[in-house]
Each structure stands twice: as structure tokens, then as C-alpha cells.
């Protein structure tokens, strides 16, 4: 079920305030070459080693659109359940900067390739909330200025110049820093599922600008009802928010700053602010008045981008199963909304889980095992799911052995630890048999353990006869005696006979 976002209110001196958030995300298109040139897009190459004359803005050079980048934008648009515009236009955004060799960025201004769409974000309580997508357009990335290479000179690296970016703009539909982070997480999952962006925020291939405003309680509802921005506050755009954690920090700081400013008699001015992750605060970068006049106009070097509907349909037909669909399928297997959302949030995790199912694990038991045991170990070791030492089949085997009553939950944990170290890939055969960990259902061994416990604890025997519910204590002691190898059900049955306990039904 999806419901409109719930406001997270901020207490002010004059009453409660609501936060309203919109985002602009720059996602680097996964492609071999740049948006308008044949230069490579590989990350981490030597400075200026992946620069064509087009990227460097040499005289007489002309841009030629890379069809792969267009395909990736369309694929992303389809993944965002958005309208694909069959005709779109590339514009020039003019400004001077040393890392912008042409003196303009080729972007899409009035006619983007993708229009309105929607992303469902998954919240902690399992609830989902729709966030409207305003548009997605293609544009060139700029180069990179390097100010720390020389005491009194700056250098420019143009490797990034001309790489294709998708700018994805949301509607102001988020109401808390948690929702903003959840949106970015979901968007990242979608583009990763689609294979259109690697989503690596630390390499800069996904960057977010966050628009934050505050309004009095009710202002947002009014905006949603009327579509008029009048009841919303003035927004500030926070640039350079490069991790999930920073988004939360930046939003919290900025919303509080705006509330304090307004309540102190000031007004929020529309401006661009920079998030300083070290100080944990936002600082003014430039005001609306100082904003560039970009002098957009259609790029005369490029024809309007016309898409063939059949081509778009072919892309649609080739889309993989996306997180929401996968989540629904997992929920149909009996998983909770929350568990399903956690599994699908990374494609690799979902794939791992599905590999466990394929290897015979039961869905609910598998997700519990992953959540309670395996994910924790991975986190502690700082490993991604695909880098972990235990294969999906091995984990599935362990879960299955528990289900079969072959090993106890406690032994299962030991088996996991051993498998983690030894990586046999076959815990069933390799570990249980070899190390004698198969659960003891040998009644002789169990009876011997029971006798030993009774002999050592005559007082407890009297107590349990009066209060049969204390039998659990005896079970625990017997398990201890057998080193955890005894089958708890067999121990229970033997105890009942030996102590003459009534059946509890």
C-alpha cells in the first residue's frame, strides 16, 4: 500500500513546522564512450588521457550523439514508470569555467527526453510512499578543476568532460531526511537493476542536490491539493551531498536553520548552498541574484532527438524485473514488506536470496537466517554480499538442515562460522559428518545425560514434579551435557518419560 508522505515536524518557538524536500540527482550513464564523443568513460585513468578534441572544445569540432546513452536514458525513464518523449531537444547552457572547454554545457532544457514518472520509496515500518518524478534529461558532465596540485596554479582534468549524465528531478514530495535518503537508495537500486548507472556515490557517479524548504503545518497539504507553490516556503538548494548519511545531516541542519531564521524575524532567500560535511552545516554559495544567466538556446549542431516508438518498445520489453516487482513477488512467498524491501534494495542481495531458494531453502527461514546471522557477519567484516565467503547454496544447506531437524539452530551458527573459515561450499557433507555435529538422536546417549543431570540436581527433580513447566531447565542442562548435539525434541520426550511428566497437549 502506498500513502502520501507523512510530515516530520520540527518544533519551533511559534509552533510546529513541516519540512518539504525535492531532489535533483545526477546519475552518470553507464556507457563505454561519452555522450557526444568516442572518448572512453573508464574511471580512474590518468588525467587528460581520455579526452577527444570534441571534449576539449577544439575549433571546428562537432558533437555526435551516442545512441547507447540515449538508450540508457530511455531505459531509466521506463524504470521510473515515466513518460518517454519521442522528440526532445539538446540546448546549450552557456557559462565560463576552465573545466568547461566549450564554454557551454550541452543539456536539455525545455524538452527533456523523459517526462513525469514515479518512484515508490520503502520506509522502515514497511510502508511505501510515492515520490513524483518531474523529468529526466541527458547532459554532459564538466571536467574537474584540481586546485591542490601546485601552490599558485590550478590544473584541469578533462577525462570527465563530456561524459553522459542523467539529471533526474523529483517533485517536492519528500517530508523528512529519512524519506530523502530512502528515495536516493531506491533510485540507486532502480538504476543498478537497469544497468544504466553504477550508483557509486563515492566515485561521484551519483550526486545529489537537495532542495529544502519549511512551511507551517498544513501548507504542504494545501500545495498537494491546489498544486500551487504559494503555501510552501522558499527553498534552498544544497549542492554536493554525496552520501546517504550527508543527506540526512544536510536536511536536518538546513530545515532547522530556516525555522530559526524565520522565527527570528528573517526571511529565507532562494539560494544555492554548499554542504560542508566536516562542519555538518550548509553555507551560502550564491544567491538568486548572483545566479548565472545561462542563455539557454537549442544547440544548432544537433538535430532534435527523434525516437522510434518500436525502438522504445524493444527497450521496454528488455527491462529486467525491478525492485518493486521483485518485492511483491517475495511478499507473496510470505515475507514481510520490510524484509522484502531489504532484500530487493540491492540487486545482488535479492539474487543471493533467490539463489538460496533455488538451492532448496524455504523463503521465510532463508530471510530470517540472512537477517539474523549472515548479514551481520558480512557487515562486521565490511564485505558486500558477493564478496562474502559463504555461497548461497551453502547457506541454503544450513537452513535446510535446521528445517529437517538434522541440526539445531545453535549448531547451525557454528556450522556457519566454520563454513566462513573453510569455504567448503558443502556444509552438509563436509562439516556435519566430518566433525560429528549431526544431532544426537541416539536415545542411549540422551538417557545417560538425563541420568547424570538428575543425579546432580535432586532438588530440581522435586521442583519439576510440582511444576512441570520447569522441564525446560532440564532440557537446557541435557543439551549442555551433550555439547548441544542432542535433538531437543528427543530430549523432551525422554525427560517426560523419565520424570513422569504429564503431556501438555
Amino acid at each position, binding site marked *: 500500500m502506498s500513502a502520501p508522505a507523512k510530515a516530520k515536524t520540527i518544533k519551533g518557538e511559534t509552533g510546529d513546522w513541516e519540512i518539504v524536500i525535492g531532489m535533483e540527482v545526477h546519475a552518470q550513464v553507464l556507457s563505454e564512450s561519452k555522450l557526444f564523443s568516442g572518448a572512453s568513460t573508464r574511471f580512474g585513468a590518468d588525467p587528460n588521457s581520455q579526452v577527444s578534441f570534441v571534449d576539449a572544445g577544439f575549433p571546428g569540432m562537432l558533437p555526435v550523439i551516442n545512441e547507447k546513452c540515449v538508450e540508457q536514458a530511455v531505459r531509466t525513464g521506463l524504470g521510473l514508470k515515466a513518460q518517454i518523449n519521442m522528440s526532445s531537444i539538446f540546448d546549450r547552457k552557456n557559462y565560463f569555467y576552465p573545466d568547461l572547454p566549450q564554454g557551454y554545457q550541452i543539456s536539455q532544457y525545455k524538452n527533456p527526453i523523459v517526462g513525469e514518472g514515479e518512484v515508490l520509496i520503502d520506509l522502515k515500518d514497511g510502508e511505501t510512499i510515492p515520490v513524483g518524478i518531474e523529468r529526466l534529461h541527458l547532459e554532459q558532465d564538466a571536467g574537474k578543476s584540481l586546485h591542490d596540485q601546485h601552490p599558485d596554479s590550478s590544473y584541469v582534468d578533462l577525462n570527465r568532460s563530456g561524459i553522459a549524465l542523467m539529471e533526474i528531478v523529483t517533485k517536492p514530495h519528500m517530508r523528512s531526511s529519512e524519506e530523502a535518503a530512502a528515495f536516493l537508495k531506491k533510485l540507486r537500486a532502480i538504476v543498478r537493476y537497469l544497468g544504466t548507472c553504477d550508483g557509486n556515490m563515492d566515485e561521484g557517479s551519483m550526486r545529489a542536490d537537495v532542495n529544502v524548504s519549511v512551511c507551517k503545518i498544513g501548507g504542504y497539504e494545501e500545495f498537494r491539493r491546489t498544486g500551487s507553490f504559494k503555501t510552501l516556503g522558499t527553498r534552498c538548494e544544497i549542492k554536493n551531498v554525496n552520501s546517504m548519511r550527508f543527506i540526512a545531516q544536510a536536511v536536518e541542519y538546513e530545515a532547522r536553520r530556516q525555522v530559526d531564521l524565520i522565527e527570528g524575524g528573517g526571511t529565507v532567500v532562494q539560494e544555492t548552498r554548499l554542504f560542508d560535511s566536516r562542519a555538518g552545516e550548509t553555507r551560502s554559495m550564491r544567491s538568486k541574484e548572483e545566479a548565472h544567466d545561462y*542563455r539557454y538556446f537549442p544547440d*544548432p549542431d544537433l538535430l532534435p532527438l527523434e525516437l522510434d516508438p518500436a525502438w522504445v518498445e524493444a527497450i521496454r520489453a528488455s527491462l529486467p524485473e525491478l525492485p518493486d516487482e521483485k518485492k511483491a513477488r517475495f511478499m507473496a512467498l510470505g515475507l514481510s514488506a520490510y524484509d522484502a524491501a531489504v532484500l530487493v534494495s540491492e540487486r545482488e542481495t535479492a539474487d543471493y536470496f533467490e539463489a538460496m531458494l533455488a538451492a532448496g531453502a524455504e523463503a521465510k527461514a532463508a530471510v530470517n537466517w540472512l537477517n539474523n546471522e549472515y548479514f551481520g557477519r558480512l557487515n562486521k567484516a565490511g564485505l558486500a554480499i558477493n564478496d562474502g565467503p559463504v555461497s548461497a547454496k551453502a547457506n541454503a544447506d544450513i537452513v535446510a538442515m535446521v528445517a529437517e531437524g538434522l541440526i539445531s539452530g545453535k549448531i547451525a551458527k557454528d556450522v556457519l562460522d566454520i563454513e566462513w573459515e573453510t569455504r567448503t561450499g558443502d556444509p552438509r557433507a563436509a562439516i556435519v559428518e566430518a566433525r560429528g555435529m549431526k544431532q544426537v538422536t541416539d536415545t542411549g546417549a540422551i538417557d545417560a545425560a538425563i541420568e547424570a543431570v538428575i543425579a546432580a540436581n535432586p532438588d530440581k527433580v522435586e521442583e519439576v514434579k510440582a511444576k512441570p513447566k520447569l522441564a525446560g531447565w532440564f532440557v537446557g542442562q541435557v543439551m549442555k551435557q551433550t555439547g548441544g548435539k542432542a535433538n531437543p525434541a528427543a530430549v523432551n520426550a525422554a525427560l517426560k518419560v523419565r520424570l513422569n511428566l504429564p503431556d501438555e497437549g
Partner: protein
Amino acid sequence: MAASNDLISMTLAQARDALRDGKVSSRELTGAFVSAIEAAKPLNAFITESGEQALKMADASDQRIAKGEGGALEGLPLAIKDLFCTRGTRTTAASKILGEFVPPYESTVTQNLWDAGAVMLGKTNLDEFAMGSSNETSFFGPVFNPWRANDSNANLVPGGSSGGSAAAVAADLCLAATGTDTGGSIRQPAAVTGRVGLKPTYGRCSRFGIVAFASSLDQAGPMTKTVRDAAIMLKTMASVDAKDSTSADLAVPDYEQLMEGSIKGLRVGIPKEYRIDGVPAEIDALWTRGADWLKAQGAEIVEVSLPHTKYALPTYYIVAPAEASSNLARYDGVRFGYRAADPKDITDLYERSRGEGFGAEVQRRVLIGTYVLSAGYYDAYYAKAQKLRTLIARDFTSAFDQCDVLLTPATPGPAFAIGSKTADPLEMYLNDVFTVTVNLAGLPGIAVPAGLTANGLPLGLQLIGKAFDEGTLLRAARAVEEAADFKHSPAKWWSV
């Protein structure tokens, strides 16, 4: 071996046949032009002469010809407007800001020429970044028109912006030359130097490697002695080029063949709006004579209307500077070309490199272009100009329902004296009144020499064709050429 003067006064077609028949070698031919260029320094037609390289290319051509190989232009010496990037040869766009820029790449048009065996004599002078109608805005100084009035020794402009190419063709300094035409820069200089200038349909010749002025209007084309030569040149210059997204994906026909034949039944439109005030009577008279020539050869003359003609110049002087202001942003002193000395910071580097590197006319157009695109003015200027451009193009479409080609004057007057129009930019801009409409509509146009003024200066007529119908256009141009029988050449006053 023929006398040097006979060699350099050949047409491209004659030289091609002479080379093919072994009557002359490319080295002889090229050598004659190299000498002629040396003797013609007073004209200032070239910015960079590449005689040594030309002779090497000529030798290579002679070897290919000897083996019975060779392309369509094998061994034929040409001059290249210095707006085409040439690998290893300095390319200036006649601007200080490009400094000693030597491109590590070749423009598609010139590559096509070299692939066909042509020989490069050098890079010709032009208005800075092709912005001008008189070749007076060049950082390398003005070009003098080889023609002088028979009643004066005053130096005249060769037109612009392809003034160096026009002068080189008229003064027999090359067999043919390349030009570029954004608002008339091939046709106007060809007309005032008594030679042929063809601006092809937008998209016919690749713009790759041509220093951009106004991308939606720029188009390369040939400047030649005859209409046949223009057809020969265009066949090689034109191509379908994946490196230019606006290049037309249409096969290049054999224009020399399409040029042949009668114009019987051809409908020639006379746009009434081109009869404008202030144009000398001899221009009008020439226009009428041109129509009569075509009629005499069996064409049907029809009066047509291009109602938005009067908006063409203002539209052009919004669209072209707007695009130029953006195209010229890359000249910032950071990566190549001229850089101001000892900049204080990045802003100072930009401001002084551009302030010192661009001439006055270029700065004027960059300012106009920046203004018409800025917030609050875009709708009033650029957006409106784009609408007018559509209307102007529509005018032509309607006119071509009634006719196959249009006949107009090429220029509002003959070549004028150096310095006589530099004080008033608007008066200078009026030189393009008959030519800019064609660029705005993306159509092909050709200037053909048609007569002399009373004091002996050449005048041209312009023919305008349907998009990608250069064949018909050339056929009509040939009819004008034959009827005009223009055999005049300037007296070679510069080499005495």
C-alpha cells in the same frame, strides 16, 4: 610547356583535362601559381602560403597521374579559406585569438579535396571569424580587390567574408578556392570580383573541422572561375559525414552532368520584394537583363512573392550573433591560441585574452548575441527571430510551388572603396540584403558574373534553388553564364 600566364588563367576544368592529357604536369601548374602568389603579395589574399608543401603534393600527384591513377581533382592547385582546419598548417580564422594554432586534424571538406588529389597552395584571408562583408575585419589586414574602377586607382574591398578566396580566384592565384557562407560570404565576394560562388544547401557539405561562426547558417562551398568548375568542386567537397549531425544523408550526384542541358520550360521566379529602394539603377537593369537571357533560352519567367524578406536582415543579425556568442566562448586562453600575459586570476585571464584577442566586429557580435539570449530578452529577440526564420523559409516553399529557381541581384552594388563603410556597421550589414534569406532558409544559392558597371566593376546575379537541387541551380547558372559571356579579368596592377 605553356607560358605561365596561360597556365594560371586556365579554368579548373581546362587544367584537369590538360593534366589528364599530359599537356602539363601538376608541378608546372603548381609552380606557376606559387610564383603568381609570390607576385601578388600586395593583394594580401593569403594569410599562410604553403608553396613548398604544394610542390610536394604536386609531385605526388604527377606520380599518380603517371601510373594512370589519381582522383577527380588530381594535381589541381586550390586555395583554402583560413576557416577550414588543416592538419599541420596554421589555421587562424583571421583572428589574433587563435594565435599560432596548428590543428592536429583536417576538416572533412578539405580532406575530401586532398583525397581527390587536389594540391593546397595556402590559406586565404577572410574577415575575422568570417564576420564581415569586406574582409576589413581580418587581424591580418584587408584584402584588396584585384579589380579597380577604370576611373580610379583607389583600392577596393573584395567583399567578405571569403575575400581572400575571391581575390585569389579573380587574380589567377589558384584554379579555385573554398569559401564558407553564413549570410552571403561566398556569393557577395564572388559577385564583386566577377567570379562564381556557390553556397550549397545547408547540410550538403560537412561542417566538421570548419571554425564555427553561426552553426545553423554556416555552409562551405566553392569559389570558381566558371559554373562548370563550381560543379566539379562541389562534387568533391560535398559528402555524407557521420562527424556532422547536420550533414544530409543524401548521395552526392554528378553535378557536372546535371549542369548540362537546356533550361527550356524551367520556371524562373522573380521575387518582387527584392526590388528595394536605394539600389542603383544598373543593378535593376542587370536583373531585368538576366531574366531576359533566361527567357530567351526558353525559361518561363514568373513573378513571385517572398513577403517576409524585409525581416531577413534583422532576423539574421539576431540568430547569427546569438550562435556566434556561444561558439566563440571556447576561445578563452585556457587550452590553445592567444593567452593574455600575466593574468591575475581566471577572470582576468578570460577578460584580457578575449578583450585583446578578438577584434572590434567580433566583440560587437558577441555582445549582441549575448544580449539577445539573456534572460528577459530571449523572447523579444531570439525566440521571435526563430519564428521569423520559419516564416522566411515558408515564403520560399510557397514560391517554389510556382517556380524552379529564383533570380535576384547578388549584391546591392559593386565593390566599394576600402574604409568607406567601416564607420557604420549597419550600412555594412546591408551588403547581405539579397543573400541572407537563403542562409536563413538553408537553400542553395549561386552568384554568377553578369556584367560590368559603367566604370568597369563586375556585378553578379544570384540564383536560388530548392533544397538539395544544386543540379537545377547549376544548370540555370550556366544559362546565365553563357548569355552573359563574361570574359573580363582585372588588369594585373599588383605585379608591376
